[in-house]
């Protein structure tokens, strides 16, 4: 197994051990259901699947960004990286494995929340599965694109921030705003908006990750 796979599996194990996964995988779907059933009449008529997608887009991205930024800053502060950086691996593998692990965790949480919404909607409404699916396809893609950008922004913020406090402030100011970039084609009603959402998500994520890795490579420990 190569270093990247080892680090990636390690990160996943870390999330599992530290109960982060439970909060994400149970928390997000649960929050969507609570909002749907415990809401005021303003939310009546909004399908749970759509509500879940919106919730995941807004909360999931911020969560991913905060998790990554805080984890990287914390490990920098405690000098945990020293023992990794003196082993025969590339620095980019450390950052990318963290990104992939968080993106996968938040991505699974998103899928769980949305699938749960779809199941409830299909059971409750006269709309068929296809109609529900069509309704949520775009918000689902958007939520994954936004989570990707937010996660990459979290890595960048983690690399450049001198303290957890600064990191959290940057996540709130920048993470959320940058991750809303892929929603622009939908806001402006552009043609092929789904493809544009995916394109914007991928390009912004790759650029942010590239910058993070570049800065991490230059970093003096």
């Amino acid at each position, binding site marked *: 197994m190569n270093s990247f796979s080892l680090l990636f599996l390690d990160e996943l194990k870390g999330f599992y051990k*530290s109960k982060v996964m439970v909060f994400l995988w149970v928390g997000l779907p649960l929050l969507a259901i609570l909002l749907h059933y415990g809401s005021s009449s303003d939310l009546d008529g909004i399908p749970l699947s759509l509500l879940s997608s919106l919730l995941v887009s807004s909360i999931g991205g911020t969560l991913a960004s905060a998790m990554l930024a805080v984890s990287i800053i914390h*490990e920098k502060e405690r*000098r945990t990286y020293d023992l990794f950086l003196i082993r*025969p691996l590339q620095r980019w593998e450390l950052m990318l494995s963290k990104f992939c692990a968080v993106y996968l965790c938040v991505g699974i949480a998103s899928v769980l929340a949305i699938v749960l919404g779809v199941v409830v909607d299909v059971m409750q409404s006269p709309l068929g599965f296809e109609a529900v699916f069509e309704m949520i396809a775009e918000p689902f893609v958007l939520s994954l694109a936004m989570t990707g950008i937010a996660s990459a922004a979290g890595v960048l913020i983690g690399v450049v921030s001198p303290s957890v406090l600064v990191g959290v402030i940057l996540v709130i100011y920048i993470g959320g705003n940058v991750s809303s970039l892929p929603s622009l084609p939908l806001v402006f009603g552009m043609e092929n908006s789904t493809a544009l959402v995916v394109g914007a998500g991928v390009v912004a994520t790759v650029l942010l990750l590239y910058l993070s890795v570049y800065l991490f490579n230059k970093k003096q420990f």
Partner: protein
Amino acid sequence: MRCPSCGSVQSVSGSPLESVEVVCATCGKKGRVSLPAEGSSRDTGNNLVVLENLTKRYKHLLALDHVSFSLKPGEVFGYIGPNGAGKTTTIKLMVGLLSEDEGRCLIDGFEMPKDKINIHRLIGYLPQNVSFQSWRTVDHALFSFGRLSGMSDEKIEQRIVELLKLFELSHVREKKVSELSGGMMQKIGLVQALLHEPKLLILDEPLAGLDPESRFKVKEIIKKISRQGTTVFFSSHILSDVQDIASRIGILNYGHIEAFGTLEQLKQKFVSKHVLELEVDHSFSDVSFLSSVSGVDSVEKIKDNVVRIHMRKEDDSDELRNKLLVSVLEAGFKVRKFAPLSPNLDELYQAYVAVEVNA
């Protein structure tokens, strides 16, 4: 020596470790370099580690100033100096956590940072403050580091059992690292550094935070692995520990190597032929019989049965030593020690560091 400005090769002469002012004959740029320690060579030769003019600046602070020395395979090198002298900076440059501004660091012929991955296969490193991710158990942390160092699971298992037993830590294998005491954490740090049987072990303050028994144990382990051929580079503030295990010592102050060599070589500079230390079998009630010997300047009582005899430089001779010895014997003392004053490492360290402070 290569000019950092134009790259032309310049010849520089001087004694080992001397700091020399150099003017480039090609571009005229002025600079200062420390000449390599005795025994170092431009290629690694039979040296495992070669540091040449290693220099590091933190903004305006010159943390390391043209540091040069070399280490042979299997030796234990003790790196000492006051806080902020540049010990940790040297170590971080050697392991590639920092990048140098000038000079180069060669380990087994590989140059840092160009051949970082190859060097990282050869070294084991214990940082000053060892830290693991808190959710890991000792077993999980060691397995992860072993795998990242390219070891097979069978080999990792064998080494974990062996090393935890050696450090008497087998009972903490399944414990979370966050539950370990500071001393245990330090020892687990040593275990991870030794796990992949590195050729060069770099330890930053390895004995800090350990109780006397553990310090003794760790010193014995360091001696043992050095006998097996591993080169050990360690920094410390505890001079007696350095004296116990280091085959060679480097004293660093304000980013400069002040002294480099075996303890005996270092002592030579401060051994005073004009001061004799005399130890006898019982207490001196009066030392005037020594002061009255012609050629003696003064007599300083150090302990009840130990005195330092300061001789006048012009009168220092074998004849005077003989006269002193006869006086002591005639006064009814039995001589335990009668030799030129030779400082211990504490005194030596103070002397080297004080010389620099006063300069």
